[in-house]
């Protein structure tokens, strides 16, 4: 079944080798393509529908272009003439395009033409080739160093061990190093001290957490569905899969295949299925008014964009409506790529459901044990010993006798009118019962029933509340749990004559809702007869009259049944019968079996068929006292299984349908237009062609997600490795080698170090897609180890540090800001994985969440102190502290977070209870620190600095901290109540007998430390 693909090299014309490139040579991909792409391709590029004058400038195989350019002769070049023209009718780009070329760009075009106007295929579509690097040279340092030398720059010196320890810790595990680790690293004089430090971090279970953060952004992982109600869904086992995959160093090709098509792998494991949750991470809706076709189109689009961003670095979203304006991707490519995912079983409108059980190994074993226990009991229950058959025969006889007696004594009343005061439609069924077809407005109602009877001396009525499959929980009431509350019943005979009720009884009375309440004169909510806990079963209310009514002529009986308990606590189906028995009336001793079973009993045993007999026996077993104990054990065992299952993690996964949804080409992306061709799954034509096993006419060898996954993860794919390597580079240097990590297409950036990106991509693939090897390679370089301070010259020459003559410094990610504060305070709970958690959040932040309304309940205990990546990711209302520090809402795949520096960040660090509490707990630890022999206050300040920043404070820093301590100590001592209030923030307990002004003063010092720029900066 495996198909092989090769790469079609798009428009390769001439590849200039890196070494041959001199200072003066104009290189198409580096110098010219960005100019043309920016200014020309929109009208003279790949998009056929927008193309003007039939001129296409993105490929060379075009005689028109050859003529226009006049390569080698800039003076004769029409293209150049048009670009240089002053005539508004002639100049290109035309004035209405609002684009102008700079003098420098015009000069580049001239030189390019002069040098022969050589085209290149777009760099990222060419197979990466490993550039030559001298033996024993570190490739990264060699390739960077060579370019720096050309620019007259030299690399910066290596940073000190303290800085390196902190940098490596944030970059590789996302946590600050302990002062002890730093000291040991500084003291380690062995030649491989650095490598050993890196290895320790790579082996840490927190490495997977750190690596997961970026991956979860790019796959748009979140805990909620995204659209409209934005309700929760089960996906966290996927997040844990990602963490585990990085920790176990799962090869990246395998990681890729499992996520796109883990469910399609032969004999796929639970883990591989959980990985395929990737396909379910998109935004979905359960809005009633939404249109299925609309959302089907949105979901397809969402998935294609995801594949484009996550693996291909292609902005395929453009092709939803038209051929790409800058890259050779077409709209047909878009829909045929989308068709790969049309096999996934899912509701288009509606909640995606709970998903597959995803127990841990221990949980799976426990589940099996519970299930085995239930199976054993079931086998016992299913046995049919002779004594049981005897008992059944006796029971049948008893039921027959009782049914006979009841029929004799009770006469069902046929309602002539049956009405709901709220206007709900009411039906009278063949068995004379009344069925109420819908729930009433405001959830309460009064029924009025009239029936005529010729009985003489009626002593009472009975109302049978009957189950029905059409009712919630099968009734008999219309409340969600099948319950009802009959508040008050009034009976009249004829027009006016009230019939007094002397006594009421029932076969079942809910605690606090006795039968007698139906004639107590009270009819408000909370008062009446109810039967909670008996859903799906019949129950009977008996009303005994004070005086008999009915003279044997036609008597009209009118019943008014008031039901005033809100929430649809009204009867759904019921039957009224009358009796002339002597009082006191008796309730049936035993509730009769359902009509269906009674009918079987009334059938002669010899005439019952097998299924009837089986149903009868099954019912008998369910009621006979002989099996009561076994029934209880079995029910308990089944409940144990169900309860345990309900407690187990579940995860949405990909499940392939036999018949995939039909995918049509949507002209201009319009989902209402159904005129487009039916699309089969196919790889983007501009990137690949299938060399064998093409799908045949019948679509029998239709390509699957697994084919797509294998093509993406194939070494012949020029994009996958580059895209991942480029994103990883950003993690370690703050910016990718090509700046737009989500776009390696022609609108992306020509990489600063294309040879380096290629070297790393090839190294990555040849290592067997070994991610830890790649990480090790990058952080092992001298380039990585440089100081991040910039000389004024370097700041002028390369302000954004694209040339890498130094390291970059940047604020740590939103999650790490939190992790860092919790780690410094000592509050951090380092447990890996599990359901998402809810840190403190301002009250009312979710007030606008609706369908249903929700109240945010912050976690208590350990879950309050978990790492940031476990934070509950509510797409429409992401935790405000996360948002402030630039965490994306993950409605879209996000390869680049913004690293903004905004005032809200200051407000979060100052006032979010998480940080106030962390300061207080940090202060407790500061106070416990061993003051040594020196000044105890200075010693504690020193200790605090080392915990947070892994360095001692400078004298002036110590002096400032000391003055804070002294000022606040005095102020809190003068106002002990203020100290007490201040220390109340957060759930962490206060130490017994704490000196509160002292603790509050140190909390202020700790707050200052947590608010320092350096504390949240990776240098």
């Amino acid at each position: 079944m495996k198909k092989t693909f090769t790469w079609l090299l798009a428009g390769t014309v001439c590849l200039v080798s890196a070494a041959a490139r001199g200072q003066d040579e104009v290189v198409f991909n580096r110098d010219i393509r960005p100019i043309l792409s920016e200014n020309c391709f929109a009208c003279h590029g790949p998009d056929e529908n927008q193309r003007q004058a039939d001129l296409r400038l993105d490929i060379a195989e075009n005689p028109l272009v050859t003529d226009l350019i006049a390569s080698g002769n800039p003076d004769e070049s029409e293209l150049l003439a048009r670009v240089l023209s002053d005539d508004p009718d002639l100049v290109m780009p035309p004035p209405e395009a609002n684009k102008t070329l700079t003098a420098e760009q015009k000069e580049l075009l001239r030189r390019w033409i002069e040098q022969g106007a050589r085209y290149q295929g777009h760099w990222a579509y060419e197979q990466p080739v490993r550039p030559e690097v001298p033996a024993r040279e570190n490739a990264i340092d060699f390739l960077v160093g060579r370019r720096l030398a050309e620019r007259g720059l030299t690399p910066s010196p290596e940073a000190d061990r303290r800085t390196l320890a902190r940098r490596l810790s944030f970059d590789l595990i996302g946590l600050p190093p302990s002062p002890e680790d730093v000291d040991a690293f500084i003291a380690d004089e062995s030649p491989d001290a650095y490598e050993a430090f890196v290895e320790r971090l790579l082996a840490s279970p927190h490495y997977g957490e750190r690596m997961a953060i970026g991956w979860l952004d790019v796959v748009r992982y979140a805990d909620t569905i995204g659209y409209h109600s934005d309700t929760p869904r089960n996906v966290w086992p996927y997040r844990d899969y990602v963490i585990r995959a990085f920790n176990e160093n799962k090869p990246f090709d395998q990681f890729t295949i499992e996520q796109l098509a883990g469910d399609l792998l032969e004999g796929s494991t639970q883990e591989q299925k959980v990985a395929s949750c990737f396909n379910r991470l998109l935004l979905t809706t359960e809005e009633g008014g939404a249109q299925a076709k609309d959302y089907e189109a949105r979901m397809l689009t969402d998935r294609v964009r995801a594949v484009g961003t996550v693996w291909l670095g292609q902005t395929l979203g453009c092709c939803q409506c038209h051929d790409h304006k800058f890259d050779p991707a077409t709209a047909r490519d878009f829909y045929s790529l989308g068709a790969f995912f049309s096999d996934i079983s899912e509701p288009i409108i509606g909640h995606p459901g709970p998903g597959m059980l995803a127990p841990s190994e221990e949980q799976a074993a426990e589940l099996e044990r519970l299930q085995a226990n239930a199976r054993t009991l079931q086998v016992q229950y299913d046995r049919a010993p002779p004594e049981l058959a005897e008992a059944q025969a006796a029971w049948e006889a008893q039921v027959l006798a009782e049914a006979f007696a009841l029929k004799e004594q009770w006469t069902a009343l046929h309602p002539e009118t049956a009405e709901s005061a709220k206007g709900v439609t009411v039906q009278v069924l063949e068995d004379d019962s009344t069925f109420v077809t819908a729930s009433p407005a405001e959830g309460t109602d009064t029924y009025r029933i009239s029936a005529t009877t010729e009985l003489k001396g009626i002593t009472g009525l009975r109302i049978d509340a009957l189950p029905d499959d059409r009712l919630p929980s099968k009734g008999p009431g219309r409340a969600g749990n099948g319950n009802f509350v009959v508040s008050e019943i009034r009976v009249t005979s004829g027009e006016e004559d009230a019939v007094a009720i002397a006594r009421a009884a029932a076969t079942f009375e809910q605690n606090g809702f006795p039968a007698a309440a139906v004639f107590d004169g009270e009819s408000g909510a909370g008062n009446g007869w109810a039967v909670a806990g008996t859903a799906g079963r019949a129950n009977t209310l008996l009303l005994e009259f004070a005086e008999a009514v009915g003279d044997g002529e036609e008597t009209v009986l009118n019943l008014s049944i008031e039901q005033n308990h809100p929430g649809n606590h009204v009867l759904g189906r019921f039957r009224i019968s009358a009796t002339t028995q002597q009082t006191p009336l008796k309730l049936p001793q035993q509730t009769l079996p359902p009509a269906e079973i009674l009918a079987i009993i009334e059938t002669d045993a010899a005439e019952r068929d097998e299924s009837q007999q089986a149903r009868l026996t099954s019912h008998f077993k369910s009621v006979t006292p002989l099996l009561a104990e076994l029934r209880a054990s079995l029910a308990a065992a089944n409940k144990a299984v169900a309860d345990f299952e309900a407690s187990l993690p579940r995860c949405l996964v990909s499940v392939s349908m036999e018949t995939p949804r039909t995918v049509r080409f949507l002209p201009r992306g319009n989902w209402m237009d159904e005129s487009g061709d039916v699309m089969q799954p196919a790889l983007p034509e501009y990137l690949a062609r299938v060399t064998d096993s093409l799908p045949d006419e019948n679509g029998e060898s239709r390509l699957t997600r697994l084919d797509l996954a294998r093509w993406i993860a194939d070494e012949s794919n020029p994009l996958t490795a580059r895209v991942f390597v480029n994103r990883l580079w950003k993690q370690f240097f703050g910016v990718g080698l090509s700046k737009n990590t989500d776009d390696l297409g022609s609108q992306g950036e020509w990489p600063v170090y294309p040879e380096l990106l290629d070297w790393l991509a090839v190294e990555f693939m040849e290592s067997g897609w070994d991610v830890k090897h790649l990480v090790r390679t990058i952080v092992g370089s001298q380039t990585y180890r440089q100081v991040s301070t910039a000389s004024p010259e370097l700041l002028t020459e390369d302000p954004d540090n694209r040339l890498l003559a130094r390291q970059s410094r940047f604020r740590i990610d939103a999650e790490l800001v939190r992790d860092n504060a919790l780690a410094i305070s000592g509050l951090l709970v380092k447990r890996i994985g599990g359901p998402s958690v809810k840190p403190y959040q301002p009250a009312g932040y979710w007030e606008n969440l609706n369908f249903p309304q929700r109240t945010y309940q912050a976690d208590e205990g350990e879950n309050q102190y978990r790492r940031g990546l476990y934070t509950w990711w509510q797409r429409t209302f992401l935790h405000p502290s996360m948002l402030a520090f630039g965490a994306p809402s993950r409605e879209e795949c996000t390869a680049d977070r913004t690293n903004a520096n905004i005032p809200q960040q200051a407000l979060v660090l100052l006032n979010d209870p998480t940080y106030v509490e962390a300061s207080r707990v940090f202060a407790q630890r500061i106070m416990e620190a061993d003051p040594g022999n020196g000044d105890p206050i200075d010693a504690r300040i020193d200790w605090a600095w080392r915990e947070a920043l892994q360095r001692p404070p400078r004298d002036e820093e110590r002096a400032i901290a000391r003055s804070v301590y002294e000022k606040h100590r005095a102020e809190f001592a003068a106002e002990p109540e203020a100290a007490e209030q201040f220390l109340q923030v957060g759930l962490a307990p206060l130490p017994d007998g704490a000196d509160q002004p002292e603790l509050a003063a140190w909390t202020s010092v700790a707050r200052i430390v947590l608010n320092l720029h350096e504390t949240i900066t990776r240098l």
Partner: protein
Amino acid sequence: MNPLLDHAQHLARRELFGRAATGIGTAALASLLARDGLADDSSTGGLKVPGLPGLPHFAPQAKRVIYLFQNGAPTHVDLFDYKPRLAEMHGQPVPDEYFAGKRFSTMTGDPTGKLMLAPVEPFAQRGESGAWVSAFLPYTAAIADDLCFVKSMHTDAVNHAPAISFLLSGGQLPGRPTLGAWLSYGLGCETDSLPSFAVMTSVSKGTTCGQIFYDFYWGSGFLPSKYQGVKFRGSAEPVLYLSDPPGMSREMRRGLLDDVARLNEIKLQDYGDPEIATRIAQYEMAYRMQTSVPELADFSDETQATLDMYGPDVTEPGTYAYNCLMTRRLIERGVRMVQLMHAGWDQHGSITTELYTQCKDTDQASAALVQDLKQRGLLDDTLVIWGGEFGRTPFLQGDINDRPKWGRDHHPYAFTVWMAGGGVKPGLTYGESDDLAMNVAKDPVHVHDLQATILHLLGIDHERLTFKFQGRYFRLTDVHGEVVDELLA
């Protein structure tokens, strides 16, 4: 956002600190930054930032925008768009030719056979301009001569969230920058103690309609997050995390912030890292918000006459009237755009009931805001826009015999908005729907046209305010939009 310019300013500021930082307290630092204009550097990410170079593109008529966004879609048929024929046809089926080939919400599905529903309240022509306003809105009616009605609005979306997103961001899906974010990005921020783009929300009393205010209604999309709207909440803490921890006095807070700044300055001197300077500025900005916002929300300096004008709800935080007065106070303090969103207009089955409450909650305060701005001379350069995401069907949703449950469904093919101040023609009624208010009959104004016009009033050419994202230049008006010249004063 010129990186070279940014960088030059970083260097300049670094030199400043290098030479003179010793002994400067933060207050002095802040005033230095402010005086020499360095705090205006957009790269500081602070509150007070200039706009893009070259913006505005031409002289603006309006400097500020107030969008009184009526979530849920007010019924144009019952409020503004008077059609005598609709009353004549009350109870008759909607003629086929009015809806052929059109899509309605899944609640209506196919409109065939739906019955026309006459306006519930009488209409009258108001003021000298003679604009039609129904009896539902007496206060709006009284200021009709100040308003410019556009009766030929139409949109592409039929459900709330996509349509609201479309009006505010130009795209139906979440993820594009909204109008306020574009304005902050393009024109910068004029205030140094408040954000440039403020948002408030309210819900009508006792409404049964469950509308959601999603964050993306005021999101910055792919623009940097500093441009997103800051939500002012109708509660004790109008801005998130604004309040100090309990027990922390104002003086202690000031001292603490000064100490943080002094410590950061030491590092700034060491490294000259512009990000540190930005961080120092941001703490100062945070402090200013902490001091200015409580004062902003303190209405004790308003006269009784002003309070009365806005109506009895004005002192109750979280109400529409309260938000309207807050809007004026924000505008006075230099906020560029206030987006005030009020939900509860989704009358699927409550045209004869909840619509009255809805109008009562909003009519007086909307009109008061326009008058208040006018009295203070602010209306001339403040553009006020009132309107929802679409209109409501001229035909009935519900049972014609059950008047208490009469409703109207979503209707994107014609609806009305009004504007005031900021360079629009007062007393103008522009565009027309057909004789049943079903479709636009004359001078159609698409959502993108409205957006282009709003930007034009602010001195912005909508085709030239763009941002490159995912390989494409995006703008508020997508690839459409024409300025409606006839609306301009």
